[in-house]
């Protein structure tokens, strides 16, 4: 993984400034969703070998949540956007 990450707000910043949260999962199910839906959301992962979208927090910078698209095999980052731009269709 590169040592520098391009934050959309702060520009190129050292990787140590970021906290990685992991896979951008399906939107959080409603409280009344059935057990299978909750199990899927809480425990199951796509865990792809290749392009992977994940939440990063610029914890020692602008403190914004970001969504990185990163290749898990080569560690190359192809896209970084602010998490607020993410569509949350299906969330309740």
């Amino acid at each position, binding site marked *: 993984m590169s040592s520098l990450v391009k934050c959309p707000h702060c520009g190129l910043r050292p990787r140590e400034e970021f906290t990685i949260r992991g896979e951008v999962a399906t939107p959080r199910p409603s409280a009344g969703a059935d057990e299978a839906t909750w199990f899927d959301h809480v*425990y199951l992962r796509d865990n792809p070998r290749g392009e992977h979208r994940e939440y990063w927090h610029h914890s020692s910078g602008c403190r914004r949540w970001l969504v990185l698209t990163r290749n898990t095999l080569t560690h190359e980052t192809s896209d970084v956007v602010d998490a607020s731009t993410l569509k949350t269709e299906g969330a309740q």
Partner: protein
Amino acid sequence: MRYSALSLLGNAFSKNKNWKPAWRNPDPKPNYDVIIIGGGGHGLATAYYLSKVFGVRNVAVLEKGYLGSGNIGRNTTIIRSNYLLEGNNPFYEFSMKLWEGLEQDFNFNAMVSQRGVINLFHSDAQRDAYTRRGNAMRLHGVDAELLNRDQLREKLPFLDYENARFPIMGGLMQARGGTVRHDAVAWGFARGADQNGVDIIQNCEVTGIDRDGDQITGVQTTRGAITCNKLAMAVAGSSSHVAKMVDMRLPIESHALQAFVSEGLKPFIDTVVTFGAGHFYVSQSDKGGLVFGGDIEGYNSYAQRGNLACVEHVAEAGMAMIPALSRVRILRSWGGIMDMSMDGSPIMDRTHLANLYFNGGWCYGGFKATPASGYCFAHLLATDTPHETATAFRMDRFARGYLLDEKGVGAQANLH
């Protein structure tokens, strides 16, 4: 050929020109009773015990790279059975017992060295937790000894006992724990399985899995299609990747973990020591190098390498525990891919497909489990029922709420 003092002597007189390869290098047959995907420690051990104990000999082990190129040759070689939970302890103790007789069993020198494993504690609360763990171990018939600071000083005088932030108060020791030469484990199991008729097929990557309804019929590989009656996955690190071929999603993330070895030193550390205040563990190899490691990198990865940030982190933790390490130069570092399961415990079970069996999710603790994992997985494959020590490693435990949370940690570094 059986290795013995006599065979060593005989071959010495013939100038060591007559040694034969330790295993064959066969072409795949069109059909096998059991195909094991993954020629790592667990896959080879499974083939060994399947052929030896359960009499299933028409078996192939398919390995993507060369034998021993994955985590079996990348770990820090530690064996121990200092587990707390009912579902874990008997399994790891079974593994320890297999380690103790392994070299005689598969007639190969794996350099099993029961030099002891000591986990340090740094607070009253941590001592209480280790006391509980030690008691649980002893109730299961496993050796455990709580060392106070003075006892520890005699054994390990070089630790930083007066560390301002994490003073060392003592340690929990399992004297039967230790290290094993990891490559020799792969070679010993491979040789033993090969002698029993198992085909070990290297440089053969599985690219697809053929299905007929809920039955597996065979696999597509880079060396052609092979059919089978039962298919077994032992590909920890790449479990999600292979499971995707049969539309399975797993409670697993793949993370990179690094290990390190220093330049050779005179005898310095004669046990395995783990830091209780951070993630750091160290032992000294017979060659003199300090073998050590730390935490996972903290991001999903299938690249068998880590990052400098983690190197720095591991070095800092090591320095906090043993200040003398500041003078030691690191010779090499390397990385492997861990199947990080959601509760930190492995999965060994049947799957939603009738003749597909899964073994994975070993997190960063798979090496010590190698013999028992092979034995129990072979038991599952041969009898369709879990071995008595491996009944807790069920695939459906997450959905049922029966997590096996030995350490109470999750898959990612931020859940540790």
